């Protein structure tokens, strides 16, 4: 008798749990929540904030002092001081450095398990990438604005373009940085290791930075570097940024503007497609 009763109890209906019924949020909510998260991580870490804002200032200080003699060059007189020549291009190169750290940031999260958590949740992985791209672009904007203020106050940056011209240069730099961000996100999802990422980033960034008109007029470079500088997409962004800020255009304004924005768009599209494909959940 007892045995029968126990057997019935053991095979009885298991209580159904009260699932909360949360089956996932909308794409927009995912992007918003994840963007806020990345920004908070950045803003709440005072050391990270300090150094990421300090880095472009140190670059600016070094270049303006070490290369200050460039302003003696005949072709440089039109810009007044070297800082007016240097700062618009530093906006673009800083945007590129910032874009690179976007890829490193993604890799860090891929290795520390945060991404692994999202993968097992009803979360769009494209939302994860988009949120990173957005939050890093906001971070980039903060970096560039701080740099602009410091340049005006400490280095005597007084370009002919005025506030409006500088704001336009900032905007172009942000678009270029945003596009390059997708390139580095694509590289990050491809190499999957922070060390490899650093090496690839170094190989990408330095030729782009120095094989351009960022620090020296292209006309002063050896012939073969001139060829590179003229096909370097970064050169267009630098011409555009410098033209907008200083009103001195080294190439056709409409052409450089359209070229720099279009190249950024193409890089963002291709980078985004590759990153999303590599980032897929299953294989």
């Amino acid at each position, binding site marked *: 008798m007892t045995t029968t009763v126990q057997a019935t109890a053991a095979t009885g209906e298991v209580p159904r749990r009260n699932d909360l019924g949360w*089956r996932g949020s909308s794409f927009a909510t995912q992007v918003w929540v994840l963007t806020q998260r990345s920004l908070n*991580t950045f803003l709440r870490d005072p050391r990270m904030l300090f150094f990421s804002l300090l880095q472009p200032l140190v670059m600016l200080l070094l270049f303006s002092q070490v290369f200050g003699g460039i302003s003696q060059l005949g072709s440089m007189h039109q810009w007044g001081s070297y800082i007016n020549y240097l700062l618009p291009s530093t906006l673009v190169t800083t945007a590129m450095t910032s874009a690179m750290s976007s890829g490193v940031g993604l890799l860090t999260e891929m290795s520390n*398990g945060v991404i692994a958590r999202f993968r097992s949740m009803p979360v769009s992985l494209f939302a994860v990438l988009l949120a990173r791209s957005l939050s890093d672009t906001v971070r980039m904007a903060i970096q560039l604005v701080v740099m602009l203020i410091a340049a005006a106050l400490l280095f005597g940056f007084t370009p002919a373009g005025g506030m409006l011209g500088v704001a336009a240069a900032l905007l172009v730099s942000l678009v270029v940085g945003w596009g390059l961000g997708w390139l580095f996100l694509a590289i990050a999802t491809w190499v999957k290791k922070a060390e490899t990422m650093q090496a690839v980033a170094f190989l990408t960034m330095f030729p782009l930075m120095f094989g351009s008109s960022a620090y020296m007029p292209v006309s002063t470079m050896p012939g073969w570097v001139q060829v590179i500088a003229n096909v370097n997409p970064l050169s267009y962004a630098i011409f555009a940024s410098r033209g907008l800020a200083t009103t001195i255009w080294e190439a056709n304004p409409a052409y450089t503007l359209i070229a720099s924005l279009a190249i950024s768009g193409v890089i963002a599209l291709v980078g985004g497609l590759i990153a999303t494909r590599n980032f897929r959940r*299953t294989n």
Partner: protein
Amino acid sequence: MTEVMIEARGVSKVFGSVTALDDVSISVPRGTVLGLLGHNGAGKTTLVNVLTTLLKPTSGSASVAGLDVVSHGDQVRGRIGLTGQFASVDENMSGFDNLVLIARLLGATKKQASGRADELLATFDLTEARDRPAKTYSGGMRRRLDLAASLVGRPDVIFLDEPTTGLDPLSRIGLWEIVEGLVGDGTTVLLTTQYLEEADRLADTITVLSKGKVVAAGTAAELKAGVGKRTVSVVLAEPEDAATALNALAKAGLHPVHDKARHSVATPVEKSTDLATVVRALDEVGVEVGELALTEPTLDDVYLAVNSEAPAA
């Protein structure tokens, strides 16, 4: 008939030339725990990854809560909780913020999310560390936060991949109690472990994996019946007491053996009271004990038992 919540039917997974899973089938009824037992590289994590939609099976099929993991991946992800081998939390965020983030991603409102986060922090004894960044947590706390994160949506099915690896004994027991609580609530659990003891304590049924194949399956009792018993070993303070000790233990109804190299005698035991029997028998004949240890059978014993039963191929 009880609903099957986790099912794998002939699942294989091949990575290049490596077969990580070879025709694996499992079935876990609602409200029960399946222990997936195996060494590193046995295929446990690969199976968990297939069942949690992180990997596509090369062949075979799998479903969770009746939903196919390949064709209904997103729906499956909305119903499961996964705690991997490595804590998947954002180290720079506080425990509270981590849980709120997950709740918001699952579709909770801000208010619901913070309510649920505080509820979980209390359940997992993390209220005091609520606002501290997760990187300041101890290993055990981090593991609890990770488990809490998998439970935010109160899912019906939980996957725990080696949840106690690397934890100190006290944290391990704490985690076991949490899992037992979940099962009491009717959650279905798939747990992977390298420890027979852990599978024995938590699992209703155990599946043993070796090199991607299921080599044994059954209840803990069924598996243990084929495995060696627990062993009491006694290191003698005076090695010359060995003969006296062996005699005394044999008289007490045990089957001792002599390990000359370690100056010890060992005997298989069945009940925990047998430990007292050993001590009493040795004390009565005046044998001084140097060390005394009770050893549980291990996964290796299961493998040995399984291999000895397997037909010679």
